[in-house]
């Protein structure tokens, strides 16, 4: 099933995809464009851990002229940077290079501590699409992206759907693509990840407990380009969804 979280008619609703419409938990059916889409995650009573991978596709590392990392290059993001489907992301005034990053996002389903690779998929609730925007101008060090680059308000669209893990037989076999104003600019495949989903769950859960609702953003393949106000960016992953975002001025 595909789960969404939307604002409609003065309240926030959990919803399911149903024959090209949204089926709200209260039984009403509404069109996709009748709602405001929120990140497809249930709220948590504590801050959500969001792990994000840098340089996790060999081709992207090559594109940036880096050799592939020997161990996962991970940084953290705050939940405040998340944004729903069909929303607007701010391009700050005066910057020269802001680019999207289409990423498979793993949503943890069970408390995970010292999980072995072979068992890792048992701890996944599902998958969604993240667009982990970066402002290159603020980047001081490739290996250590700072919060100003990666933790900005509106900077991480997520959605539209949380797709149940049971409906994604192999997350390492999914095509990714991004279009800017309808033009294909990025095309990749999750099989090209340097550290795959089971590896990442084993690696992180060895030193930090992951909780239901925590996220792992697994990195982006090559093909990133500058985005300007008004540009419509669609980051899409096969069988997971197409996440639409528009760039705006501050």
């Amino acid at each position, binding site marked *: 099933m595909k789960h969404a979280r939307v604002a409609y008619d003065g309240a926030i609703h959990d919803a399911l995809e149903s024959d090209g419409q949204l089926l709200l938990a209260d039984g009403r059916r509404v069109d996709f464009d009748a709602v405001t889409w929120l990140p497809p995650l249930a*709220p948590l*009573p*504590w*801050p*959500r*851990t969001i*792990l994000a991978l840098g340089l996790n596709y060999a081709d992207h590392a090559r594109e940036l002229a880096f050799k592939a990392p020997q161990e996962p*290059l*991970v*940084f*953290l*993001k*705050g*939940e*405040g*940077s998340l944004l729903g489907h069909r929303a607007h992301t701010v391009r*700050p005034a005066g910057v020269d290079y802001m680019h999207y990053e289409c990423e498979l996002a793993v949503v943890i389903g069970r408390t995970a*501590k010292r999980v072995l690779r072979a068992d890792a998929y048992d701890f996944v609730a599902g998958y969604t699409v993240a667009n982990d925007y970066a402002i290159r101008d603020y980047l001081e*060090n490739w*290996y*250590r*992206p*700072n*919060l*100003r680059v990666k*933790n*900005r*308000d509106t900077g991480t669209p997520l959605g539209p759907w949380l797709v149940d893990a049971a409906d994604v037989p192999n997350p390492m076999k999914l095509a990714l693509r991004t279009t800017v104003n309808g033009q294909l600019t990025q095309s990749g495949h999750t099989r090209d990840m340097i550290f795959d989903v089971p590896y990442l769950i084993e690696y992180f859960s060895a*030193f*930090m*407990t*992951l*909780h239901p609702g925590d996220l792992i953003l697994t990195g982006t393949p090559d093909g990133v380009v500058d985005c300007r106000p008004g540009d419509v960016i669609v980051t899409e992953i096969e069988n997971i969804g197409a996440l639409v975002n528009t760039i705006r001025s501050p």
Partner: protein
Amino acid sequence: MLYLKTANTWSACGSAITLPAQAPEVEIGASLALLIGTPAQGVGATEALRHVAGYVLVNDLSLPHTSYYRPPVKYRNLDGFLGIGPRFATAAAVGAPNRLQLEVRIDGRLRHTVDLAQMRRSAAQLIADVSEFMTLRHGDVLLLGLGAQRPRARAGQRIDIEARGMPALGTLSNTLVQEGASSDAGPPQGAKAPLGGSAAHVVASVGAL
């Protein structure tokens, strides 16, 4: 320099904090936590402290590491690596945060003093600079600390942190145990009480190096 401490790191005052089996020592980062009361977005330094509801002591632990050129998640975000408490003091009770001096005692001996007046950016300026790109929400926590000369401690030792002349903040105490010797620190439960008991604390950030 800013970094994030995740919810799995929270440890209540009085609890044991587990060091991994292969880690003989840990660095003690005595810090003052600013608890955000009213949301701060693009605020100026002169108004910034009005967004602070109050303060809590924290012990921001980190495994010693040398590489500056990697995000230090696996050194700073281990389960239990943020002692918090024992109590919340209102902004009015504490006054200007940068005049505080935090004392670190290891097994009762004074080993280090963090003088928050030495910070390159004041608390007010830090709130202004951070809120320029990320909204600080009700319940968010900003940690003020200094990176230099953090003392180290080993399993079996007890760490006490207090602010000199500020009994309203109490004494934050944690003991260190080696992996295998203690139960798991559940993440969110630990820090809830000292941070005010609200159900939806949203983040934690920062430390200055």
